[in-house]
């Protein structure tokens, strides 16, 4: 039997990073396959090669048994492959029908015909969409439906959905799954990129697991269980040599209760989050990307509007104070520091065109007297960071943009530490760093902990979190899914908590 689509020996590199390593994978018609893996395991990259967004460095792609070359999205459509991206590719001011018509060259330009086609498809699979409705007045779920219709209208036989449920409510998710099953009955091959185990179990026929760019195994859903899948997903624990000391005399520093945040569209980003961060302890925060890590740190730093909840801050030897309602400046001055390393490293916190001294000034610009800024103090801080963290730079006035990633991060973290905070929050501090530089950052965190600082460390690598932190708080969809002791917890345990609130206990109940 020929497969609907088959990947053979696919390898894709970005510079020195191998995103996909010799992946072999196939899907049959009338089958829903889940593509499961952690962040950065190469799921989306792999599928983007089918959709014509990337071109594989090595390997072959077969559609219905025939080898094909997919150089751009047009080729993908020509081969009956359609991908629904996580970020919708729709034009807001166009109607649904106009969006569907984009890029289709079939005879006379007739929007009525397109609208008719949209209605036919909607009827067939049970969508509920008005072809003449403008995209900007649609809900997220409707927009997704338009994306699916766009793909179906072009006659796609193989549908790839990249984390389609990330933006949907549970009811909308159920509806989507019904539609997927209807399409499966119709003989279409469907690939679902996801890291939510309950969805994998609920809707797919087979599961393919990717880890660090490699295809680990494909199993039938009926013959597996969440525990086994998690093991395949996270792999065996790696030993790291981080000198972890026991917390000395931990005292509650931040007491957070019932913290709820919504974004500008009213979507809940944090839901009833509560925990205590102790001084002299490193609290790790784990979770799949976008589970509310950034929102949590921003809420504590006063950068995000808080719908409800309280953040009680108890500085050393002082009486507790409520942080909610304070300005970011007041929170900073109270001793809560945030070192956030975004994906692009420079985006938040440092100004690329300025040197170290000037970047240090961003913390202290309002401290000086008179109308002239004081350069002496920040210069001293910059010298300190330069010496202690061994920043490699021609001079402390050299633009930080031109430094290597590790050095940029040292400057960022170093600046926050230099303000001798009593709460240090860092997010993705070792993002993109090589192993040695990472250790410098780990040791920094350690030394802060030894000083009695409450360190909150948001990380991506579970191995690191387990080796560095004292406790790990796991976020899942904006909720606290569990808090574990990092000394005794296993990777699987944390992995399960990351994918399901309560580690699957809820799903099984």
């Amino acid at each position: 039997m020929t497969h609907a689509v088959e990947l053979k020996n696919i390898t894709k590199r970005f510079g020195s990073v191998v995103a996909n390593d010799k992946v072999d994978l196939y899907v049959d018609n009338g089958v829903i396959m889940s593509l499961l893996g952690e962040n950065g395991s190469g799921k989306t990259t792999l599928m983007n090669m089918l959709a014509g967004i990337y071109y594989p460095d090595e390997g072959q792609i077969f559609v219905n048994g025939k080898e094909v070359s997919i150089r751009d999205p047009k080729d993908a459509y020509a081969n009956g492959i359609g991908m629904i991206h996580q970020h919708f590719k729709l034009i807001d001011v166009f109607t649904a029908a106009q969006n569907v018509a984009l890029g289709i060259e079939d005879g006379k330009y007739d929007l009525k015909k397109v609208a008719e086609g949209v209605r036919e498809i909607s009827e067939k699979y049970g969508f509920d969409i008005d072809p003449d409705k403008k995209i900007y007045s649609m809900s997220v779920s409707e927009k997704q439906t338009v994306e699916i219709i766009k793909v179906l209208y072009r006659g796609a036989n193989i549908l790839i959905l990249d984390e389609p449920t990330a933006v949907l409510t549970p009811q909308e998710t159920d509806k989507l799954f019904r539609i997927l099953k209807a399409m499966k009955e119709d003989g279409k091959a469907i690939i679902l990129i996801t890291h939510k185990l309950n969805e994998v179990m609920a809707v797919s026929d087979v599961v393919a697991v990717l880890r660090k760019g490699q295809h680990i195994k494909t199993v039938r859903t009926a013959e597996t269980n969440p525990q086994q899948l998690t093991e395949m997903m996270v792999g065996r624990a790696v030993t790291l040599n981080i000198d972890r000391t026991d917390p000395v005399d931990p005292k509650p520093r931040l007491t957070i209760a019932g913290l709820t945040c919504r974004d500008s569209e009213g979507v809940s980003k944090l839901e009833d989050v509560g925990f205590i961060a102790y001084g002299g302890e490193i609290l790790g925060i784990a979770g799949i990307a976008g589970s509310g890590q950034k929102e949590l740190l921003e809420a504590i730093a006063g950068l995000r509007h808080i719908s409800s909840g309280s953040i009680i801050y108890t500085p050393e030897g002082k009486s507790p104070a409520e942080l909610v309602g304070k300005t970011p400046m007041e929170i900073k001055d109270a001793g809560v520091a945030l070192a956030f390393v975004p994906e692009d490293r420079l985006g938040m916190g440092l100004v690329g065109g300025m040197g170290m001294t000037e970047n240090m000034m961003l913390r202290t610009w309002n401290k000086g007297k008179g109308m002239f800024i004081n350069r002496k103090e920040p210069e001293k801080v910059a010298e300190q960071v330069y010496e202690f963290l061994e920043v490699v730079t021609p001079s402390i006035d050299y633009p930080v943009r031109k430094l290597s990633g590790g050095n940029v991060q040292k400057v960022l973290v170093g600046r926050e530490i230099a303000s001798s905070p009593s709460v240090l929050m860092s997010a993705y501090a070792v993002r993109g760093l090589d192993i040695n530089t990472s250790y410098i950052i780990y040791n920094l965190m350690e030394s802060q902990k030894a000083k009695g600082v409450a360190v909150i460390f948001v990380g991506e690598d579970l191995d690191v979190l387990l080796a560095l932190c004292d406790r790990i708080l796991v976020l899942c969809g904006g909720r606290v899914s569990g808090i574990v002791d990092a000394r005794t917890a296993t990777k699987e345990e944390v992995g399960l908590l990351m994918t399901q609130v309560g580690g699957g206990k809820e799903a099984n109940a």
Partner: protein
Amino acid sequence: MNFNLAGLIKAAVLNGTPLLFGTSGEILTEKSGNLNLGVEGLMFMGGAFGLAGAFWYDQLAGGNASGIVAVLIALLCAFLAGCFGSLIFSFLTISLRANQNVTGLALTIFGTGVGQFVGEQLRLKVGGNISISNALKGSFANPVLPQSLQDIPFLGQVLFSYNGFVYLGIAMAIVMSLFLNRTRRGLYLKAVGESPSTADAAGINVTKYKYLATVIGGGISAIGGMVYTMTIAGTVWNHTALSGEGWVAVALVIFCLWKPLNALWGSVLFGGLMIMYLRVPVSFIPSQIYKVLPYIVTAIVLIIVSLRQKREDQPPASLGLPYFREER
């Protein structure tokens, strides 16, 4: 009423026609997501090269120059000059992804400079003000419709008494509107301006659409400069005559909410506002105040539009942003 309403309207339309071309061209450009602030320069180039084309044709043909050929040559020269200017802009902003604002301003400086150079060179060569022969002048500025239509009271003057460029401009704006709203290519072009990555994913050649819209739009804008020089300025090169036309045209694009049909009446309104100080002088208002009226009106429209928050009235979503395919 102590002023002539029909006369005012007629003057507004004549004065608005260069704006109509300048604005329509820029609308086409901006629909592709390119903000070309070089319209002022393009109109200068159009004015100078249009005049130069007609002038040299006149010189070479001697006494038997044909009016229609002279008009076509002027149109073509202006259009090509505009295409050339906006091609530089396109190459810098689309292919090399230079900042559009900076490049546009540079094009203004470049275009006005080139225009002045060509115009002044001609002037020096001829000695005194250059101008084409009176026989040809008429074929640019005289009414094109039959006398019987023009003789209709009021309407004749308001609707049928114009030179050919007025009607050409109206036809051009209508065709552009049809193109944008009724054709597949128009839909694609708007898609490119709204979200190039979406258009790209749908298999639309973003670079091609951006180049074509910007180059053709620049050519159309430049025709506006030629129309001004050949009709309003009486085929005489005057180095300050065109100043500000291009900037008003850019403001008018916003005023028209990026719709060519709005440009039809918008250009008449702005054309009228620009000459109000001549036609309806109020003694205690200095003429300088009059001259800023178009900008004040634009500012008011911007405020109203942003208060209404209607999505259709917003600028193309990717206006001014370069497109990197790899950044998907």
